[in-house]
């Protein structure tokens, strides 16, 4: 080990010299306290280091030790249900070491080394070993089977010994290869390097979120990427929580990057009590949390995103569909800016470093649907929150993010103010996955594509009419146009708006989503006809069925969606009666 010494301390950035043979992004232990850091720049003998912990009272000429390996995460059974800080230190373990407050210089094993897992071998002695060979399985939780697979760092050879089925800790040798290497259930992977796979695939399967505005209007595919930008208080975190709770991914990696401590506590207290509708198990049994809150060291915030996505890729390689929630990528970009400022780099826009777009691109490109080394199908879907200053989407982080995501869920201040949640704006949002997903929806409801385009059309017309109304008032419009306003209002209140507190409404299954829309659009169609045959709008809007339709989202349970046909019948009857009454008047 080569020992150097500190020559300068400037906040979380340290300069050291005398580190022999140090490489970029090598991990270093800095000072007497042994704080973890990473080399980010080398110039001659001088290394620039960012450290991940508080360095109060650190002195010049204290020792620096280079570990000659990049920052890596430990991967193995026991990740699920854990909560880590940005450099994968287990927070509950740190709590037992230093109490409720985090002290610098603490270390803890990321995975429980004492716990025994039941290992079932998948190969036998003499079998060939290569990257992508699964050598055993461990049942990690009731819903997650952990496949132990040789990663691409493992050289091809044969298995000399294989441990028999039984209970082992993660440090026990399970396979010994013919070239003398020993393999356990745990492996390491450098966080800044994407894990290898065979090839990327085009994706035709949606990530069903249970949020109507997303699934129908702006759907996201498994392996896709989406950005959720919004000013403060518009519900970014609430939207991410809702997706994390109800989306049909197998595993959720939730990265709290520079956000509030209480939000992570909320996930920690709420998720174990919620039941995953698909597996019937607690939601915490499919969740990994990375919590680097806003008051924790800023350099660790920068790396937390990579820690999270590496864990996600690890499960993807077992053939799972993983969804990553990154809340918030703006805080990550700000960490980049802060470190860049300390390095006295030339700033580009708004003080952000010029390499911000490159880093964003690299991050979002780590998502995707892939054929794994084992030739299975797995995916990582990335949903990143963006917190634009002043809610202004023209700022650099939002603008650059837009270039690398294909789904944009813009949160709207006015909707949030009216407590219309999720406050996803139908004017500014878009999804480029719509075309790819038609095949999937055809199996559920062939009318999906028509429904969504008609809905978008009505909302678009309403927007134009609203501009006119703002000038001359609604009374000046003819009934056909006022009907558009009425229907748009029903779509907003009865479909787009969704309560995360209502037990029935919080998760909406795809068949119910299309049913609700079918009901509202049937109403619209019949109302159009009724107006043509002379019924006044006033009578149509007074129909009791209208209010019933708006309430249908919370009165009709997901399992009872077939009862919806009766509602459509009810709409027809109501209009038939209205028509008859109108006929009587005109006669």
């Amino acid at each position: 080990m080569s020992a150097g010494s500190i020559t300068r301390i400037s906040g979380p950035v340290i300069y050291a010299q005398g580190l022999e043979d140090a490489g970029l992004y090598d991990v270093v232990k800095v000072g007497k306290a042994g704080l973890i850091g990473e080399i980010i720049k080398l110039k001659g003998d001088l290394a620039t280091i960012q450290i991940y912990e508080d360095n109060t009272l650190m002195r010049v000429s204290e020792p620096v030790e280079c570990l000659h390996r990049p920052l890596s995460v430990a991967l193995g059974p026991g990740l699920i249900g854990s909560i880590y800080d940005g450099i994968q230190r287990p927070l509950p373990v740190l709590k037992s070491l230093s109490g409720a407050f985090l002290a610098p210089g603490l270390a803890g094993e990321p995975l429980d080394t004492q716990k025994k897992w039941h290992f079932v071998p998948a190969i036998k002695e003499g079998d060939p070993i290569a990257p992508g060979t699964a050598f055993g399985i461990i049942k990690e939780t009731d819903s997650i089977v952990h496949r132990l697979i040789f990663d691409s760092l493992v050289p091809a050879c044969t298995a000399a010994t294989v441990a028999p089925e039984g209970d082992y800790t993660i440090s026990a040798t399970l396979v010994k290869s013919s070239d003398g290497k020993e393999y356990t259930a745990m492996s390491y992977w450098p966080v800044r390097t994407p894990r290898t796979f065979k090839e990327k695939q085009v994706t035709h399967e949606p990530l069903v979120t249970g949020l109507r505005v997303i699934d129908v209007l702006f759907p996201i595919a498994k392996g896709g990427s989406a950005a959720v930008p919004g000013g403060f208080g518009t519900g970014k975190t609430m939207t991410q929580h809702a997706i994390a709770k109800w989306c049909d991914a197998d595993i959720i990696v939730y990265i709290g990057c520079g956000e509030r401590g209480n939000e992570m506590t909320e996930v920690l207290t709420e998720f174990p009590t919620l039941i995953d509708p698909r597996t019937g198990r607690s939601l915490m049994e499919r969740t990994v949390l990375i919590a680097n809150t806003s008051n924790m060291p800023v350099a660790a915030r920068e790396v937390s995103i990579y820690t999270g996505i590496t864990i996600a890729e690890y499960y993807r390689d077992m053939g799972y569909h993983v969804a990553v929630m990154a809340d918030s990528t703006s805080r990550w970009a700000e960490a980049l800016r802060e470190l860049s400022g300390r390095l006295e780099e030339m700033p580009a826009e708004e003080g952000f470093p010029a390499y911000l777009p490159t880093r964003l691109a690299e991050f979002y490109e780590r998502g995707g649907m892939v054929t794994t080394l084992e030739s299975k199908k797995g995916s990582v879907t990335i949903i990143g929150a963006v917190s634009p200053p002043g809610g202004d989407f023209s700022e650099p982080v939002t603008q650059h993010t837009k270039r690398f995501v294909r789904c944009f869920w813009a949160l709207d201040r006015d909707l949030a103010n009216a407590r219309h949640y999720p406050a996803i704006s139908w004017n500014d949002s878009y999804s480029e996955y719509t075309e790819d997903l038609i095949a999937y929806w055809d199996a559920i409801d062939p009318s999906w594509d028509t429904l969504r385009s008609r809905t978008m059309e009505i909302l678009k017309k309403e927007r134009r009419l609203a501009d006119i109304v703002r000038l001359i008032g609604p009374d000046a419009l003819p009934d056909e146009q006022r009907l558009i306003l009425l229907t748009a209002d029903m779509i907003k209140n009865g479909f787009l708006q969704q309560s995360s507190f209502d037990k029935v409404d919080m998760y909406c299954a795809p068949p119910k989503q299309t049913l609700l829309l079918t009901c509202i659009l049937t109403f619209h169609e019949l109302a159009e006809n009724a107006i043509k045959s002379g019924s006044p709008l006033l009578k149509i809007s007074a129909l009791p069925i209208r209010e019933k339709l708006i309430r249908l989202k919370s009165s009709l349970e997901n399992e009872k969606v077939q009862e919806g046909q009766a509602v459509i019948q009810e709409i027809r009857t109501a209009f038939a009666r209205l028509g008859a009454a109108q006929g009587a008047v005109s006669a």
Partner: protein
Amino acid sequence: MRGLEYHGILRADGPIVIAEHRENVGFSELVSLRDRTGEDRLGKVVDISEQAIAVQLFSENTGISIDGSWIEYLEKPLTFRVGDGIVGRIFNGLGEPIDGYPPIMSSDLRDINGSPINPSARVYPRDFIQTGISAIDGMNTLIRGQKLPIFSGNGLPHNRLAAQIVRQAKVLSGESQFAIVFAGMGIKYDVARFFIDSFEKSGVLARVVMFLSLADSPSIERLVTPRTALTAAEYLAYEKNMHVLVVMTDMTNYCEALREVSAARNEVPSRKGYPGYLYSDLASLYERAGKIEGCEGSITQLPILSMPNDDISHPIPDLTGYITEGQIVLERDLSQRGIYPPIAGLPSLSRLMKDGIGEGMTREDHRDLAAQLFSAYAYVRSVRDLAAIIGEEELSDRDKVFLGFGDRFEREFLAQGEFENRSIEQTLDLGWKMLSILPESELVRIPPKLIEKYLPRAAEPEAKE
């Protein structure tokens, strides 16, 4: 080294002093600088290299000379002496008593920067605090352990509102020990006096710890004031098991001081000249609110900030809003119409409200009622915009009803007396009374069975107004 003074400095530039490198000086270490007249000033080490040490002073810099200065390195970060005796006392921003009474007798020194709370050791805040103010209790509920800032503007009654909250705040589920920590940063003497008087009148002065860095104290001292105050608060909450309400005013002055120092250090500025780390820096204050496991006490923060030019997208309120758990926004228009408290209905928000209200905590109808009031009031705003263009007479009957609702909502629900203390039941009933102005079919955010149970029926005479 401690007890050893080094003679001379290399450069003095604003609040930053550069001294020659010395062995064994630590980052963030506290520094005492004695000038040619013998006056001591405190500062901290912000950058060390093998050649030089940069020190940021906490006090003003007049009279510092190159050859006449002596520097002592104190081998510890800036600390605050905590002990039972701090309650009822007044300190300056650096934590030195300024009320004329003897210093605190304790050997317990705490680093004022604190340590971040381990997220897995936090307890999610759920206890409802009744402030007796309808706009807060009903619409933007305050929760114990929350950080809920007041976004105000110059000339708006934020101080009166904060004093009213301090006076009336109580938890419904029984009483326990409480304390108030007050941090005044760059405020005028009269404002500080107003708070002292108001604490005295409501009989809580003996439970207040005050930290005053008034407008005439050096601006750099304001960077330390909230940290000292929060150190006191953490001691009272997590060791003395008290429920601490921290009032910090005015955060804008704090941020200005931060900008001043950042500029003096030639850092790359981000928006409006504020440093790029303004978010992280503010977070290191606001995140010190909360509740932790195994501890009765809690810290609830009520920071007050004046929005420069009433602009909510200015970096200070903007970044604050991203960190805090909601905000109470005061609106000049309401204030000018004589409505107190002028709490803006729509932009105000309490993020922790959702888990602290409802059956067993406030009342079963609270959540839906609040959602409906917000939604209706949002519509009122759009109707008003329309009425401003086409005139009220041209509005449809439905819109006219909403307009009437809006006016009464502001005059009867939002507005109340400075000494009026409404119980949560009164607030909620008042909310229902407001909703009864609207046709029942408009109340789509409320389940029918709650409407059935709580909506006052049209038989009441005032519904005909």
